[in-house]
């Protein structure tokens, strides 16, 4: 039994539990707006994080709970954000779609599809110019591969040989529409990599070790001056696109097949030691329980916060 794998399992379980809690809190009317659960995608976030340095930059999407937590945002501050608490990781100003933990180099969750890929290229450019050896990673969906920013970012990163890693979480669907119906190639990210002279891998995104290893290879290449890599991690979301979506458009057989390949099950099997995994599950549950309690007990977001933080001086004044 590998201690590292068990640890990765527990991290995934914490994410799973946190999102389950978010879902329940939504149903209880304590979370407003919308959420895009990443349940099923945990291995991508946890595997990648295991391969990265703490100061490597991460950019994620509106479906970003797993990345925020994998990079070091606490379940409590994430749930508090969703529940509009003053202790939320963005003080209630971001919400589910914008979880950000800058102190852990998790530089944001962005809700305009594809927009963060150029930002990641820019962070990689900055790392290169400053000579820090940092890598910048962008996580994005299959649907994001058809938007212009994807193209521009990959070309720029390739030409400037930037230390960037582009990780597509291909979960087969955009919101409700299968990616295959609107994309001209079978692997929406990997099949585009040659257009930028970039290496690509299609990997099993539900196996945390496979993800870890692929990201490690890409990060090493990036740090060594070898430029960007495209990784297409095949995975699946357990819930619908967002809280309003029952996801009926997905064939039953497909859902069952992927649930059987749940990243937690895959990791559980790989650990081999059922008792150890059960113990990890219990620890994860306790972590989540404490987080829920703390978030519930936290003070509500402060309306005065609405008029701060537009400018670097902390304020929002636009006129004299």
């Amino acid at each position, binding site marked *: 039994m590998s201690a590292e794998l068990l640890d990765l399992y527990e991290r995934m379980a914490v994410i799973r539990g946190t999102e389950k809690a978010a879902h329940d809190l939504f149903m209880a009317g304590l979370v*407003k707006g*919308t959420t895009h659960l990443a349940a099923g995608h945990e291995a991508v976030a946890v595997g990648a994080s295991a391969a990265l340095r703490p100061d490597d930059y991460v950019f994620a999407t509106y479906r970003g709970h797993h990345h925020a937590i994998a990079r070091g945002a606490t379940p409590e501050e994430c749930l508090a954000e969703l529940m509009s608490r003053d202790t939320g990781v963005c003080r209630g100003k*971001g919400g589910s779609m*914008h979880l950000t933990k800058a102190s852990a180099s998790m530089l944001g969750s962005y809700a305009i599809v594809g927009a963060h890929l150029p930002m990641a290229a820019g962070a990689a450019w900055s790392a290169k110019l400053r000579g820090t050896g940092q890598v910048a990673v962008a996580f994005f969906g299959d649907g994001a591969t*058809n938007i212009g920013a994807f193209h521009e970012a990959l070309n720029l990163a390739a030409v400037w040989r930037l230390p960037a890693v582009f990780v597509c979480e291909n979960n087969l669907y955009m*919101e409700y529409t299968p990616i295959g119906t609107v994309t001209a190639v079978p692997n929406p990210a990997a099949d585009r990599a040659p257009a930028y002279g970039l290496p690509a891998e299609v990997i099993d995104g539900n196996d945390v070790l496979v993800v870890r290893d692929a990201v490690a290879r890409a990060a090493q290449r990036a740090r060594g001056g070898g430029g960007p890599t495209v990784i297409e991690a095949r995975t699946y979301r357990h819930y619908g696109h967002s809280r309003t979506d029952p996801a009926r458009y997905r064939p039953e057989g497909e859902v069952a097949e992927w649930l059987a390949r749940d990243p937690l099950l895959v990791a559980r099997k790989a650990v081999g030691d059922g008792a150890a995994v059960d113990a990890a599950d219990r620890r994860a549950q306790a972590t989540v329980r404490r987080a829920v309690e703390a978030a519930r007990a936290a003070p*509500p977001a402060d309306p005065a*916060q*609405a008029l701060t933080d537009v400018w670097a001086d902390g304020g929002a004044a*636009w006129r004299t």
Partner: protein
Amino acid sequence: MADVITYREAVAEGLAREMRRDPSVVCLGEDIGAAEGVFKTTVGLFKEFGPERVWDTPISEQAIVGAAMGAAMTGLRPVAEIMFSDFLACCWDYLANEIPKVRYMTGGQVTVPLVVRTANGGGLGFGAQHSQAVENWALAVPGLKIAAPSTPADVVGLLAAAVRSDDPVLFFEHKGLFASRGPAAPPDHLVPLGEATVARPGTDLTVVALASTVPVALAAAEALARDGIFAEVVDLRCLIPLDIRTVLESVGRTSRLLIVEENPYQGGWGGTVASLVADEGFELLDAPIRRVAAACVPLPFADPLEQRVMPTVDKVTAAVRGLAAY
């Protein structure tokens, strides 16, 4: 059809009416076909008109609107959906530089009869990138017509006018109004572009509103009437063409003007209305022109913060009282 329908249903109804009437009307957008739209505003269309008239697209806002433009120049009347109006930024070149200019810069050689529909506005806790009222971006662009209905019947009537217009129309559906109800539109209902309406007559002051701020203004007027303050509420319905005549006539009766906008003050359409009145209606005014607009911040996620930022009935009521007492 039911006597009362939702704003959301009115969108689908308005589209269906036009698609039945004119076979050159085609729809395209993300998840609008088989899935019937993320906001359920295209329910029934795919079933009735099939995949040759209702097209699911990739997440490619530039291709959606750019293709709509090419199709409009060559014999179709496309209705493109941009899911959230914030995403207009992803295809802004088409709305700002291409679609509205090509007729003019070709000396009238081509015409672009298209509609871009989009879900606009905040109040639902969708955060900074899914909540903006962006009609002001479009207002600054010559060559776009801009409609923003506040009632289900106006949705149907303005959509009919928009689809039939030989000019490009940006059609703002307000997310916060989708669930609201109102009388269904009569058959063949058509509301010409550029005609404001007096949503509630009054004598003491004019409140000019648009889309989501119309019900806010009406609620404030209702509350104030109990205190003997009678506000006239003008629903602009369109920003371009702008029916400033109706506004000036109302101010001629009331001598006071309050403008209620969902967007921030700076750069907002209220500035255009205010400056027209401050020029052409200067002598009519007995008081300063006031505007209730959003704070100049991105829209925050949390409810109490969002309420602090956006125009509310309380803010409008307070502003009306202040102005009436001036």
